[in-house]
């Protein structure tokens, strides 16, 4: 027993460097702790599930040679300064094939410039803030190595405003947190209200800070303005405080907001006060198709949970790895620049759990951010919270997804 243990340890020692030389190194970064952790850890675990599947099948075929994927994890804690440090560290690695991750828009803005400088390919997921991509279009960058695999806030805010208008509401209050994500989300919402014909009057625009628990003042100013609906942009714990405050003050209007409303720390802390909350989702944890079913069951089993903390993040992390792997295969190389070129022109469709991705990205054009954005309006559905789970808000969406998969 002891001998085999020592033998296997020794074997391990020799095996690791041998494997490392032959492996494709991908860094996964995100907040694995703090208020955004449900998104960060779900994204990471979804991505690792995909990596485990790919490695179990022998790895990726790179120019005739099978190569394993090796993961480097970095916890940015959702802090901008950590994001910058990690960006610098990753940019200095010479054998890195790419980076996947980031949840917080501020972290993306602080860290990605170091990667772009060195031309390291990164797929941002699930950070949705507009600033993550328009920092590059505004600067007129000609050649961009940063891609996004998330329903950006422009799509989401359009859906949120659409939904409010379709319910015939005319007065809305906007609540948002004071981070980059919240402030840019607020601007997107105001923008969308204008674009969709000014049918909603914004009767209150109220900010809250990370860590705030008492939202009475913000909510009462919404109530005083006669808001019929509350639009919100923030992360889980504070939005739960908003829902609980609404229940306390007897405010029964619907709460509609960004996809972060599906975070487990919103659902758990808001409890029954969260029921009926609406948000755009790229993935709903419901076994609509066999492929989705096997992903959900695989996740539950691998991480010993009965509910994915943030299903959207997990599914996006999972699909992002498959898209990245397809690019590595097409490039026939682990060189990050060649992978970037392949990503801009993926020839074979990639079957993921969210959708089957056909040519998700194209050559970067600073005048059109959509060239490096994978998601379109049709890839996103409205989700609704019901008794601690996110379900389809519209049955039509559910049917549409099942149909498109069987095609």
């Amino acid at each position: 027993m002891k001998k085999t243990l020592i033998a296997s340890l020794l074997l391990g020692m020799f095996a690791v460097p041998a494997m490392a030389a032959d492996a494709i190194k991908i860094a996964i970064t995100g907040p694995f702790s703090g208020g955004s952790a449900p998104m960060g850890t779900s994204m990471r675990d979804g991505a690792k599930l995909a990596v485990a599947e790919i490695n179990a099948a022998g790895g990726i075929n790179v120019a005739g040679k099978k190569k394993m994927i090796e993961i480097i994890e970095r916890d940015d804690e959702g802090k901008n300064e950590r994001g910058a440090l990690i960006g610098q560290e990753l940019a200095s690695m010479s054998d890195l094939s790419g980076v996947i991750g980031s949840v917080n828009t501020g972290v993306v803005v602080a860290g990605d410039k170091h990667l772009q400088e060195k031309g390291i390919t990164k797929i941002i997921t699930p950070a949705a803030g507009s600033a993550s991509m328009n920092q590059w279009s505004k600067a007129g960058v000609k050649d961009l190595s940063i891609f996004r695999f998330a329903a950006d806030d422009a799509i989401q805010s359009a859906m949120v405003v659409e939904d409010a208008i379709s319910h015939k509401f005319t007065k809305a209050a906007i609540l948002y947190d004071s981070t980059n994500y919240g402030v840019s989300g607020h601007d997107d919402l105001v923008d969308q209200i204008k674009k969709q014909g000014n049918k909603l009057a914004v009767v209150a625009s109220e900010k809250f800070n990370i860590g705030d628990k008492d939202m009475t003042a913000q909510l009462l100013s919404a109530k005083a303005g006669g808001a019929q609906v509350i639009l919100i942009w923030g992360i889980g714990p504070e939005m739960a405080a908003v829902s609980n405050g609404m229940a306390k003050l007897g405010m029964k209007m619907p709460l509609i907001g960004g996809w972060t409303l599906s975070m487990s720390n919103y659902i758990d802390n808001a409890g029954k006060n969260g029921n009926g909350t609406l948000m755009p989702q790229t993935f709903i944890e419901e076994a609509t198709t066999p492929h989705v079913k096997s992903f959900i069951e695989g996740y539950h089993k691998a991480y010993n949970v009965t509910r994915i903390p943030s299903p959207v993040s997990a599914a996006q992390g999972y699909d992002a790895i498959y898209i990245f792997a397809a690019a590595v295969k097409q490039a026939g190389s682990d060189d990050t620049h060649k992978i970037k070129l392949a990503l801009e022109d993926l020839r074979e469709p990639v079957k993921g759990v969210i959708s089957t991705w056909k040519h998700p990205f194209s050559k970067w054009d600073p005048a059109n951010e959509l060239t490096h954005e994978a998601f379109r309006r049709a890839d996103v559905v409205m989700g609704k919270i019901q008794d601690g789970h996110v379900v389809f808000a519209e049955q039509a969406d559910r049917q549409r997804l099942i149909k498109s998969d069987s095609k």
Partner: protein
Amino acid sequence: MNSIIIVQMAVSGALMGLVYALIAYGFQLTYATSKSINFGQGELVMLSAFFSLTLLDAGLPYWLMVPGGLLFGAMMGLVVERACVRLSLEQKSEGWILLTIIFGLLSFSAAENIWGRDDRPFPSPISADAFNVFGISITPLELSVAIGVFAVMGLIELFKHKTLLGKAFEAVSADRDAAELMGISATRTIMLSFGLSGMVAAMAGILISPITTVGPTMASALILKAFSVAVVAGLDSGFGVVLIGIALGALESLTSFYLGSGWREAPGLILLIMALALRPNGVFGKANIRKV
């Protein structure tokens, strides 16, 4: 409509202010006897809340968890006294400032490693469903905070005035040297004050956790406000902290409503500056006259 909103805001703010007052009271207790302040008081609140949550998770009923949590808080208070304060006081040094801060940082890291960095809900048998009083919504949970704050402070004040040990406490607070000459052990009294202060911190943790959730950073925002309250009211003002706490809480809510939510933190700071400029001993503080 409008006047109801103002009252609602003031009431909600005042209830939050009572929590500041309770934590501020913890500062007062140790300051009274030892003229030192535990700058890790916020971490004591957080540690006790986590410990109480662990007791609940272990299956202990709520009403048994409360004394358990309080005992833990008192013990942590004694640890702070022994590890950070006693030696510095003996050497008449100000080392306790740094030591209590270090204790806070250590506790923070320990909590992160033991319980993780996520905010967790804290179950409570007290309902969070609001009821209406003249159009103002109050939840039983908020009411329990108010009752808890007054109960703890009332009991401790009663103890100070009615028991022999309490009188020793008052004697050391009034004049340490004279009390020692009368045969009262100052060291023991200071230990007692730190134990009580830890207990108050634990009570604050148990009371606010169902509202704020439990996480390593749960008290970091509260503690600054509590410190302002303690200084503005005066570090030996007793029930003065309650008035200042309520006023600050209500003011915060109203500022946030009228000036915008970005201005929420302003009144606390302005109050602090004004108090230090006009009444350095606090609004309810006694002037520091010492006969030689």
